[in-house]
């Protein structure tokens, strides 16, 4: 069945396009979340949630099986058991590293294996190899695929191509869960981010994700807010809950709590779960753990006391 050609013709409102975004107002709204004061019990609960939502990431040319072992172990048990901190949601790695991660974690780990794919980060590769890469990663044991959209096509106005490629990758994913990276730093305007979010959700994304982390700016509060608003409208229109993942540039516990506040006050309680919200980060984890230790024990912490990722 071909949905485009076989769907009976139906009038759709010419005005039923994606809304535009006012930059000044959305940046003010995003900033207002940083003014929430999250203290004591709320802070501890929030920080533990941040860990549970983290896709602990290593995406370097110099990654090796040995490096992966440290990453997986840290994601599984970030800190001593006495602090009662959960495992991270996932590890996020390059396709070639997937089988090492799977080997280390085993078949039924609380930590999922997410693989970037589709010519990450630029995506400037033939579709055929991008799809093949995706299938291989899934075959090697990836639970989740983080793909990049075709920004060249988007900025050249070929939104249909962007849509179609996402659909193709979704199909290549099979049972694996698809996160679609918009690379907001290259899309530049909030209007573009809103439109790209809509395209990704309609094309089959399970999650929409801000950035690869390889381009500045990566995740920011306002860009994430635009995407949360797109998810909200999509849910109310279709009944489907899409997840969201800001990635790159979130380094401190304080910043991560601001993201949680934003999710809570934009999408509500239902999205405050690793099934629908993730944070892509690496150095963030230890800052969060130091804050947890401070909240539990008392004094400001020193990095020497926290294992490297």
């Amino acid at each position, binding site marked *: *069945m*071909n*949905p*485009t050609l076989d769907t009976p013709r139906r009038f*759709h409102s010419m*005005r*039923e396009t*994606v*809304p*535009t*975004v*006012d930059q*000044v*107002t*959305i940046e*003010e*709204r995003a900033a207002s979340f940083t*003014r*929430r*004061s*999250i*203290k004591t019990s*709320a*802070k501890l609960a*929030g920080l533990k*949630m941040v860990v549970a939502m983290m896709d602990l990431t290593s995406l370097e040319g110099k990654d090796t099986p040995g490096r992966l072992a440290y990453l997986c172990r840290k994601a599984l048990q970030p800190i001593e058991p006495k602090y009662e901190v959960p495992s991270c949601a996932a590890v996020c790695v390059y396709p070639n590293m997937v089988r090492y991660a799977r080997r280390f974690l085993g078949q039924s780990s609380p930590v999922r294996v997410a693989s970037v794919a589709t010519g990450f980060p630029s995506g400037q590769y033939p*579709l055929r190899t991008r799809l093949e890469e995706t299938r291989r990663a899934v075959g090697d044991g990836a639970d989740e695929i983080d793909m990049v959209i075709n920004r060249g096509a988007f900025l050249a*106005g*070929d*939104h*249909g*191509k962007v*849509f*179609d*490629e996402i*659909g*193709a990758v*979704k*199909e290549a994913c099979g049972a694996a869960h698809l996160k679609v990276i918009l690379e907001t730093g290259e899309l530049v305007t909030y209007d573009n981010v809103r439109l790209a979010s*809509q*395209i990704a959700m*309609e*094309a*089959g994304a*399970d999650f929409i994700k801000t950035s690869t982390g390889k381009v500045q700016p990566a995740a920011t509060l306002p860009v994430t807010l635009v995407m949360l*608003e797109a998810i909200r409208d999509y*849910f*109310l229109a*279709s*009944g*489907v*809950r899409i997840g969201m993942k800001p990635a790159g540039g979130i380094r401190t516990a304080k910043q991560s709590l601001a993201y*949680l506040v934003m999710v*809570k*006050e934009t*999408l*509500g*309680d*239902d999205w*405050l779960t690793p099934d629908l919200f993730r944070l892509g980060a690496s150095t963030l984890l230890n800052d969060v753990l130091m804050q947890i230790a401070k909240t539990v024990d008392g004094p400001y912490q020193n990095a020497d006391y926290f294992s490297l990722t």
Partner: protein
Amino acid sequence: MKTKTLKKARPAVAVLKPVPFLREAKPVVPAKQRRLHFGGRWEYAPAPETVPVKIDPRHELFIDGKFVAPRSGQYFDSINPATEEKLCEIAQAGAEDVDRAVQAARRAYETVWSKMSGRDRGKYLFRVARLVQEKARELAVLESMDGGKPIKESRDFDLPMVAAHFFYHGGWADKLQYAFPGKTPRPLGVAGQIIPWNFPLLMAAWKIAPALACGNTVVLKPSKTTSITALRLARIFQEAGLPGGVVNIVTGPAATGEAIYHHPDVNKIAFTGSTEVGKIIAKVCAGTGKKLTLELGGKAANIILEDAPVDQAVEGIVSGIYFNQGHVCCAGSRLFVQEGVAAAVIRKLRDRIQTLRVGNPLDKNTDVGAINSGAQLEKIRELVRSGEEEGAQVEQSACALPARGYWFPPTFLTNVTMSHRVAREEIFGPVLSVMTFRTPEEALERANNTPYGLSAGVWTDKGSKIFKMVGQLRAGVVWANSYNKFDPASPFGGYKESGFGREGGAQGLSSYVQLS
């Protein structure tokens, strides 16, 4: 493995329809159950402001650079509207005290202030600005305790804006001739100023800074329910070395204000408050030679067109009416939404108000604080009741309200018509009246159909529409794709019964000078 042929490129406009075959695996929440839940998952812990402040049990009048007891011998209580607890006693200025203050202002004007260079007047104002910045935290806490507004607002909006007003006007003091090309500006003399309780310290700054910059001296009466920060400002004037008598502060009820605008030796009256009282003052001042400016009530239209950036428009609605508990003369209290997007906007508004936190003004997470007084609370309740009785639907946020204190939850009424009291009378509370329109011309007609004319908001993505509507709205301040934006450089004031005269900017200076 089956390879998929790529579909042809689709047109640029995205269509809001889910593609069926890809959605099979994902759970679909049925339409009737599609709701956002803003509940108790991850509750914020209390986050009280911890800056200790000391409030003297008794506050005197500030006349001729000193704190003096009122000749009337009377004092009144100032209470914290969030707790109904008494904060302190404030001196009540009678007619005799007002006369003392005016004499001090006159003496200071004749002997010191009118003889001083603009440069030096400016330097005093710069000093005051800096001192306000240094004491900002303490002043913000006092403002929240005395008036009920959230500490987040007094800290992040009121106080920085107070400092900015003094700083801005300090810079005009030695440049007045540039604001009046071709004329020589000279001060008027003694200015009597009466301010309201919604932005106590900020209104004091709006009045005092331009008056002093232009070379006048001042007798100021804060609102009876919010006198504390004005008196702290008086201490700042002392610390800045401002010569005695240049600013005098006489606290008291409406009668104290009457004594001011009846006083024959006051050259200029500036009043911010209700239209009702503004008219009384105008009558008293008629024929006396006193220059008068009035900044009165409003019933602003906030207009959302169907091509508005809709999520930000909802933010604009919220900040337009729930900011400062709706105790804002320029509040966007009438929402006009184009019919095609009305359902979506109302739905978003309904969800949005659920995340507004109402409660202890000293909690840093509070968004909406206490209603300023029992009297004001009763007025709000009465008007909302009238709305219900006249056939409108009342919707309120489901927030829990504290047991003691004066509180009203964020509210909006739908099915409101133009003749409903809630569409015509100023409620001055967190209550929005929602109406629809079909064309921009209709929106303009309805927006202008009011004796008020202070402000308005327009939300649209189309530039030419913005300028067209800005041009035709009969309001002194129009916010396009924004709301409740203020700056000392931006003139503020109303059309029609919202008053006359402007505050801020070069235009704002003209009320405080005579030109020759």
